[in-house]
């Protein structure tokens, strides 16, 4: 195939990526969008294989077979609750691939200084994406402690690593030998830097980190595209980079924090919230049932705790029973509920909750006063009125779902421990709040049992 024809096919592939992403904008067309995008990818790969530059196929076939097998098995086996970890690993493999592509580009002939700079960039961004993703995976899957790991000289150390990276990069560009020690130094320092930037970030901030790493994996592909002067890598990479940046931005806004604040200030480390005094009003499952039975509108507010308790299926069952009873049922989802953007929606969709019942925070809040019962399951910070009222609270200013303004609030909670951010929640002491203590799944099952009897 001639280079022109290949590039024409790349244009088709790019158009398919763009259409695919556009169709991902609505649940009704999203499956088709993903297929279009995959078709674009297939076209790009196939025409590349037919290019004249490719002489040997045995390595390609073997490597692709191994990769496809691992990817396919992982995608089929992964539990929906473990999706953040999975996406982190996929991100990481994309990152390391870009690192290797950049590195291999050194062996091309006719490289200019500009090419060497882009090669270093793809090694740097790819390396940070890879090791950062591995750490994010470790934190999310709790292989390593998910809290923020902070030590005194962290910023100084990070600054030193950055300076060393730039220095090695410059030294390499001055004498770009294939076995230059500075090249190995850049690879090692990039990997180290990725570890250093993710360890100070706590578990609750993971949605931001995942989005950011997603963006990096796109930028790494983009840099690799510059290194080998390939348009399709640049187009696709920057689409992904933009997607990641937008999601990062949405997540930061939903926590009312700047990106710098998320990245550099270990959140779990500060605990200055004013303690709230009050008395909680517990409720038994039988009484909760009586109130729910009389309710004409019910909103479930799920958090990561629901996923931990595996309660989503019984919650959906209760929702259907309530609908059968004539109540209007909705699921109010905070943008940062769960461990990655939109995680709760996927878990509820898996439990067969129709997507038209999944309501975003900004749509539920204006009508929250008309909700008879808001059922908070495993969520804490995202419904904490302190974010609105208490200026001393670390989460002050974060937009929340105003469940305290619903007519009645049920809070399902294992015991009276504080949530992830260590913030005490005045919601628990609210006049209209009833605490349903115990395992979320068991509590909901008990209420479902009452309905059926």
């Amino acid at each position, binding site marked *: 195939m001639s280079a022109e024809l290949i590039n024409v096919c790349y244009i088709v592939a790019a158009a398919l990526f*763009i259409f*695919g*992403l556009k169709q*991902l*904008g*609505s649940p*009704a067309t*999203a*499956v088709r969008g993903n*297929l279009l995008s*995959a078709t674009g990818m297939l076209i790009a790969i196939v025409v590349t294989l037919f290019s004249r530059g*490719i002489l*040997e196929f045995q*390595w*390609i076939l*073997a490597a692709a077979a191994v*990769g496809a097998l691992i*990817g*396919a098995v*992982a*995608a089929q086996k992964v539990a*929906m609750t473990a999706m953040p970890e999975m*996406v982190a690993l*996929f*991100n990481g*493999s*994309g990152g*390391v*691939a870009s690192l290797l*592509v950049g590195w*291999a*580009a050194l*062996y*091309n002939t006719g490289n200019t200084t500009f090419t060497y700079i882009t090669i270093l960039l793809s090694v740097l961004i790819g390396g940070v994406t890879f090791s950062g993703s591995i750490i994010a995976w470790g934190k999310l899957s709790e292989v390593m402690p998910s809290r923020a790991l902070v030590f005194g000289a962290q910023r100084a150390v990070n600054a030193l690593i950055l300076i060393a990276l730039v220095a090695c990069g410059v030294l390499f560009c001055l004498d770009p030998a294939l076995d230059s020690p500075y090249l190995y130094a850049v690879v090692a320092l990039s990997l180290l830097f990725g570890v250093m930037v993710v360890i100070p970030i706590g578990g609750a901030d993971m949605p931001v980190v*995942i*989005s950011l790493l*997603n963006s990096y994996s796109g930028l790494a*592909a*983009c840099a690799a595209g*510059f290194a080998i002067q390939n*348009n*399709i*890598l640049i187009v*696709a990479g920057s*689409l*992904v*980079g*933009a*997607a*990641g940046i*937008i*999601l990062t931005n949405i997540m930061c806004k939903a926590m009312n924090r700047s990106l710098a604040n998320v990245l550099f200030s270990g959140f779990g480390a500060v605990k200055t919230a004013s303690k709230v005094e009050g008395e909680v009003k517990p409720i038994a499952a039988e009484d909760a049932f009586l109130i729910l039975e009389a309710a004409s509108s019910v909103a479930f507010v799920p958090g990561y705790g629901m996923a931990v308790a595996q309660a989503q*299926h019984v919650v959906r*069952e209760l929702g259907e029973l309530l609908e059968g009873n004539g109540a209007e049922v909705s699921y109010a*989802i905070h943008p940062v509920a769960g461990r990655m953007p*939109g995680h709760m*929606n996927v878990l509820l*969709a*898996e439990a067969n909750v129709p997507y038209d019942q999944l309501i975003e925070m900004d749509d539920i809040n204006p009508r929250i006063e008309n909700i008879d019962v808001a059922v908070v399951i495993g969520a804490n910070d995202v419904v904490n009125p302190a974010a609105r009222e208490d200026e001393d609270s670390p989460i002050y200013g974060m937009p929340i779902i105003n469940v305290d303004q619903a007519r009645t609030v049920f809070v399902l909670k294992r015991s009276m421990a504080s949530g992830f951010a260590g913030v005490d929640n005045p919601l628990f002491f609210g006049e209209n709040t009833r605490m349903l203590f115990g395992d979320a799944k068991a509590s909901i099952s008990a209420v479902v049992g009452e309905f*059926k009897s």
Partner: protein
Amino acid sequence: MEAVFLAFVLMLSIFLGFELISKVPATLHTPLMSGANAISGITLVGALTSAGAGIEAMATILGAAAVAFATINVVGGYLVTNRMLSMFRKKEGPPQSAGQPGASA
């Protein structure tokens, strides 16, 4: 100037990306992320060129490793996105009779 031309492509694609993605509702953010992630596996195209060019052993090894990793990213990313998206369904008619927990595991 090849570099300037590529930078031009980069600039336009970033703006296009912002326009496209900002319209995706929060409900679909997870599939969007994994779908976008699969697209970032486009680096596979670059890996194929390096692995197959047969220039030097080292370049072939680096390229082949890149092919393996990028294929994980592409295949895994698209499949898992498809798996997630096929779970999203609209409400069909009136709510069914109670007590159907579904056959899911």
